[in-house]
């Protein structure tokens, strides 16, 4: 019986004018375009300069800031209000103001002062810009002491602690290495979550559900026949993902492909199961889509895709623990970057199996043959 049902499902998908195209184009679009967009890296901060001193030292300081790779001089203003205007118009991100008599005070040992104002609407960006600028000024300080002070008076070396930093798993701090595996998870989630949610409601709206309901098809067989096509689609999609990651970004998992396939197999069942549960309860396509959309957004935002789970408040971490997407995201990144194996990912494996069972049993139970 399942054979005929599967035949029906596949025909329904393949003869749809829109779905097969979508299944192939979507992963390409997402993986070719978005990894380039997804980066927090802050460089080329736009700098606005107010130099009220016009002295050698103020010029030197400004030169030093511009010649660092972090800042781009976009605005020179005569006063603070003008500079603030350029921040308001988003033409600059950070202002450095050098007061009059800057050089005089500095040489006279009264201490030079500079004012730094950063646009902190995006707190992280403002903070980083401020620290960059701060450290350049510190550097400049270290330079002028040799300039101005008689060598004998320079304080003897203080004890120094040398720090060297090593970045494991992603030594070049390449953000794409981090995002590409995660985006594959997203594609899988969106395709294998949205499509099953549509499929049953679609039959309800069309009235073809009636025919299934009066047929002798057992509930579990019907659900299984709905699941298997998406399972296969999922495998195709993730394989396309592997290919693109390798061809475009030169990314090959440090771990084993079989690990990913194993987890993907369980994960697809989980999201498809959820999709089917939703479509069992929804009576119109619109309802189903909105509910799926709601869950997808929750899953995505609380998955650690964009913002680290560790920084979330305690209660959000609890929600994240019940988020299948989060577990699969961790798995993908660990396998791709750290080369983890299923034993090391046991917790996520068990969690995903649990979710898969839960949603699919629920899917079978909530499917009612009565309308």
């Amino acid at each position, binding site marked *: 019986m399942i054979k005929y049902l599967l035949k029906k499902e596949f025909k329904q998908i393949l003869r749809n004018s829109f779905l097969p195209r979508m299944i192939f184009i979507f992963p390409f679009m997402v993986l070719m375009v978005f990894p380039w967009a997804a980066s927090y890296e802050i460089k080329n901060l736009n700098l606005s300069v107010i130099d009220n001193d016009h002295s050698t030292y103020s010029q030197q300081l400004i030169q030093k800031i511009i010649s660092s790779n972090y800042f781009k001089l976009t605005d020179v203003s005569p006063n603070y209000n003008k500079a603030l205007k350029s921040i308001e118009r988003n033409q600059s991100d950070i202002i450095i103001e050098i007061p009059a008599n800057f050089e005089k005070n500095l040489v006279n040992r009264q201490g030079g*002062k500079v004012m730094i104002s950063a646009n*902190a609407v995006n707190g*992280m960006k403002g903070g980083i810009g*401020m620290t960059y600028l701060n450290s350049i000024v510190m550097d400049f300080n270290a330079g002028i002491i040799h300039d101005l002070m008689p060598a004998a008076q320079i304080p003897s070396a203080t004890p120094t602690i040398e720090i060297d930093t*090593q970045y494991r*798993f992603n030594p070049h701090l390449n953000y794409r290495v981090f995002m590409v595996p995660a985006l594959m998870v997203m594609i899988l989630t969106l395709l294998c979550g949205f499509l099953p949610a549509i499929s049953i409601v679609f039959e309800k709206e069309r009235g073809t559900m009636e025919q299934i309901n009066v047929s002798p098809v057992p509930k579990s067989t019907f659900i299984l026949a709905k699941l298997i096509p998406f399972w296969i689609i999922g495998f195709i999609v993730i394989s396309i993902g592997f290919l693109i990651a390798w061809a475009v970004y030169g990314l090959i998992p440090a771990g084993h492909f079989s690990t990913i396939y194993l987890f993907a197999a369980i994960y697809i069942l989980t999201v498809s199961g959820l999709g089917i549960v939703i479509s069992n309860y929804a009576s119109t*396509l619109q309802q189903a889509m909105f509910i799926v959309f*709601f869950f997808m957004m*929750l899953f995505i935002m609380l998955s650690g895709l964009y913002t680290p789970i560790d920084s979330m*408040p305690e209660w959000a971490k609890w929600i994240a623990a019940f988020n299948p997407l989060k577990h699969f995201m961790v798995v993908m990144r660990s396998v791709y970057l750290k080369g983890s194996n299923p034993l090391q990912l046991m917790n996520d494996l068990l969690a995903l199996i649990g979710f898969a069972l839960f949603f699919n049993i629920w899917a079978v139970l909530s499917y009612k043959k009565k309308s």
Partner: protein
Amino acid sequence: MILLLMPIIQIILFGFALTTEVKNTEVAVLVPTNDDATSRIIDKINASAYFDVVAKIHTTSEIQPIFRDAKAKLVMVFEDHFAERLRETGKAHIQLIADATDPNAATSFTFYASNIIASYQQELAGPVANPYQIVPEVKMLYNPQMIGAFNFVPGVLGMIMLLICAMMTSIAIVREKEMGTMEILLVSPMKPIYIILSKITPYFVLSCVNFATIMLLSVFVLKVPIAGSFISLVVVSLLYIFLSLSLGLLVSTMTDSQQAAMLISGMGLMLPVMLLSGMIFPVENMPIALQWLSDIVPAKWYISAVKSIMIKGLGISSVLKEVAILSFMSIVMIGISLKKFKIRLE
């Protein structure tokens, strides 16, 4: 019902949970020789809000498993006889090994750790004897405490409004096509523009309610103030709602099944809006081609306008460019929808 509830839950969850700040990063330390210097540094690290020292390890071979099992994100390796070396030779060595799977977090927390170590070094040196110092005075504009919600609320607002509005209207016309009721509308003496406008109106009202709840929540629950004029914020938002609804209608006139309409407006819009609107990732750092692409994402302009009005406290005059672009986009979309609106059945 779900349409009203959804934005509420989303804005609260995301407003509180989304933050790129690095907090409570787990640290493991490898200390060959315990002495006052190492314990002082470890105490300082542990005391900061950024770090929790969770493990002490004894050999370098333990580092890899610690990262594998995600027990710690940062390992600090002290040199042996740390304090002694520091006293005798004036030099000692610390190695910071970071789990750089997340490059952004890794750079932030290694930076914080280096700062803490540097502050210990300064403690050792005593008051600095350099009289020729430039002291920067720092001011963080608009968001002095650097709260993440100030950045995320406008973003989430832009995303939720666009997606919900577009999804609502995207099936409006295609549904009539599928149901066969389109025929009745077409034989009626109504002009397409009236059909389109009357399709939008109920959703427009609903979206305004959504906007109002989101605003109330962000001001009273998330404590994001409206620094600028509330009226300009409302004007821009109404324009944006209208635009999003028109976008949905455009999808609706272009597709011929509810399924396709929903998939395009739900899945097709979700990723571009999330990634290219500047909501999460700064647009300025993207490759130039993507920056152009982001220019056609309406959410980008709206989010920028909301940030200007709500957070920076500027008036409507400073967001004229955004308003002009959003209006232009709405006109284009309504125009295309009208053009594509077939008055004949196939």
